[in-house]
């Protein structure tokens, strides 16, 4: 999805300024700027879902609350796994931008794998909760909890799909040092999903609900 900047091509005015063919006004890549703008927008999306949960977390309608069934040690492990996937992600970028395709592939795969473990943990957590009497429709608190964490889970899953696509592209030899920026863009998305979880882990799981 990289786009060619069109501004400066063949324009002699641009050439007078010493711009090369791909110069943009700010000198920054379109795609990377777009990703950051998008992430800014995502803040309000997750903020809305987090606020909804916070507002509803004690509204159990006389039934079990999500906070009653939290398994903090288990979630801590899966949170740690997701956190470490950010390290492997940044190492993947580092390797690809040095031209070490083999190492890049390894780290991409590792990142996707860690993400997969996180998602697996979430599926396990959800099924356990349902068994313990906290289902999606139980009360406002449970609806909000599953929507928030599920929404985050979908983001992680999309990230895994993107990582695997990069992996396949790399195997086919289409992902090289030249388009390391693609890895960086996917990485930005991945890290963002990670920092959202950093927020969720503290605010939803660790801070006790009175």
């Amino acid at each position, binding site marked *: *999805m990289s786009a060619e900047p069109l501004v400066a091509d063949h324009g*002699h*005015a641009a050439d007078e300024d010493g711009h*090369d063919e791909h110069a943009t006004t700010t000198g920054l890549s379109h795609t990377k700027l*777009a990703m950051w*703008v998008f992430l800014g927008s995502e803040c309000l999306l997750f903020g809305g879902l987090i606020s909804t949960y916070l507002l509803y977390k004690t509204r159990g309608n006389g039934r079990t609350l999500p906070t009653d069934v939290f398994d903090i040690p288990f979630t801590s492990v899966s949170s740690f796994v997701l956190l470490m996937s950010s390290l492997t992600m940044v190492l993947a970028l580092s390797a690809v931008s040095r031209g070490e395709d083999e190492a890049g592939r390894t780290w991409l795969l590792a990142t996707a794998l860690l993400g997969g473990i996180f998602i697996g943990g979430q599926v396990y957590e959800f099924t356990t909760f349902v068994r313990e009497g906290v289902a999606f429709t139980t009360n*406002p608190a449970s609806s909000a909890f599953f929507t928030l964490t599920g929404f985050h889970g979908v983001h992680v899953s999309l990230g895994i799909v993107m990582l695997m696509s990069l992996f396949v592209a790399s195997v086919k030899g289409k992902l090289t040092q030249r388009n390391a920026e693609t890895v960086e863009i996917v990485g930005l998305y991945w890290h963002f999903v990670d920092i959202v979880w950093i927020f969720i882990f503290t605010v939803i799981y660790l801070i006790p609900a009175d």
Partner: protein
Amino acid sequence: MAITEKTPLELGPGDTARYVERPLGVFTRPQGGRGWRDWLSTVDHKRIGILYGASAMFFFVVGGVEALLIRLQLAAPEGSVLSADVYNQVYTMHGVTMVFLFIMPLAAAFANYFIPLQIGARDVAFPRLNALSYWIWLSGAIFLNTSWIVGGGGADCGWFCYATNSGVAFSPSHGVDFYAIGLQILGIASLVSSINLIVTCLNMRAPGMTLMRMPVLTWMLLITQFLLLFALPVITVALFLLMFDRLFDAQFFNPDAGADPLLWQHLFWIFGHPEVYIIILPAFGVVSEIIPTFSRKPLFGYEFMVFSGIAIGFMGWGVWAHHMFVSGIGPISVAAFSLSTMFIAVPTGVKVLNWLATMWGGRLRFTVAMKFAVATVAMFTIGGLSGVTHSVAPADTQQTDTYYIVAHFHYVIFGGGVLGLFAGLYFWWPKVWGHFLNERLGNWNFWIMLVGFNLTFGPMHILGLQGMSRRIDTYARGYGFEFWNMAATVGSLLIAVSVVVFMWNVVKSKRDAPHLPPPGPDPWDARSLEWSIPSPVPEHNFDTVPQVHGRDDWWHNKYAENDEGTVVRVATVEEAAQTGEATGVHLPSPSFWPLAVAVGLPLIGYGLIFNLWLALIGALLTIASLYSWAMEPVDDPDATHDHHDDEATEGSSTEGDQP
């Protein structure tokens, strides 16, 4: 100058689409041309702008018919044109259609068409994403309206769709499901488009085009894009919760289970108030271009204009609860939001004063565009003043849910937004189509619309203060509502007549165009870069990317001060303008994938409502199309790269510094 005499829709001889024969049939990569299929695959920001504009006008008619039904129902007491149930659906869909399917896309048309031209770019930053925005918007618009046919009627909860009215208990048809999912699809379209245009504004300006040299239209549109960027996710959350409540039995808005319906109101208005500025700021931008042009003066207080626009955009986030003064949010909240609402009138007032100061002492030319622009300022000021009365919470308590509110927001949205965008249509029509709109018919259009508008919405102030509730489907005799309701209905018919006049003007102007002299690049003696290139704009926009030396750069190419300090003409338009004859300009290749991606989304929507298998098919289609898109290079290696002729490509890329 062959290109300037050709309207974009026309299919010239020998200029048909050039499809490369390949076994994949329709999915062969399109090569660009002028057939109807090329409109489906186009990535040209100008064509996408035209598509937005044409579709918006179509939905203007749809929403207008709904408005007329409302007015016919209310023309006399105990009206029986519509049943109470259908009335609810009609006024809801009228609001949704006018906001999301008319004004926003019409503003998007201006944004798409003119942002690149005003900053001296050849396209937007992501041409294919731009096409994607349009197709997703169109698919969402069609999806939303199909609820009349397959959903058991339109949404019936008002355009802000308060919980718990929006729940299954009170709204058992699928109308609200279509509302929730349809607006999410439209939201994706606007979000993608906002990201695209923000990057375009920041990253694709011509050399010398600093931010503080950008035309005010571009500035206001940029602020609008930021508002969209940050407001849409909030409504998306709200719609998401509503959808889960209705389709999957979630408990977000169920007071019986301890949920708080006010959550919807907050989320909706956190989006909804910036949305008001999303609607009005583009019109402000249009007016800020037209008034200086027809006053032959630079815009008074450019910096104040820009910064008050930014201030409106910023403060627009701190006033949302003034829509909820009667919702029981507590005295401290009411006081705080009253105060912030009064403050936001300041930057708006700054703008109004600056427009007046621009006209002051200017050599005014009252073309139709100028008349619309001046009317915009006047009508918006009336709407703004009645808005200030809402910020006084005790008065607002009296006005809430009466026709006074309806009068207020129509003065702002119709008087400000719609009149402003009509001004833009008359102003830029020659730039887009290469011929003027007829001024005589335009005058009829303007005066009938202005009178009709005031006759429709002016009396609503009185009705509201007399205590007539909004959203009621009828009223009894003897409350004193009869006269003004009839007046409003007559007014609405006048508005309809004025729109018909506009449509006739479009047809007639096109028909007359061959017998009239072409407008040339700069028919109004205007100020910004889009007037330095031929009308209609050649596909590649600029022959050479302009070097910008200051604000109103194009004006200063035509005029300069002489030794005595008087402004004199130094170049004719023909001398200063580009010819549009450049060849070999490298343009992005068309693509069918944006359309394919967009087709999948309403399928997901229908699937969520009726059958999840259909949603799966839609999702697979979307994902497959996204992958095909990602695999497709931005520039087709087989393409001719050039819309004129192959030979010139090599010759004209003189600098030739491709890596």
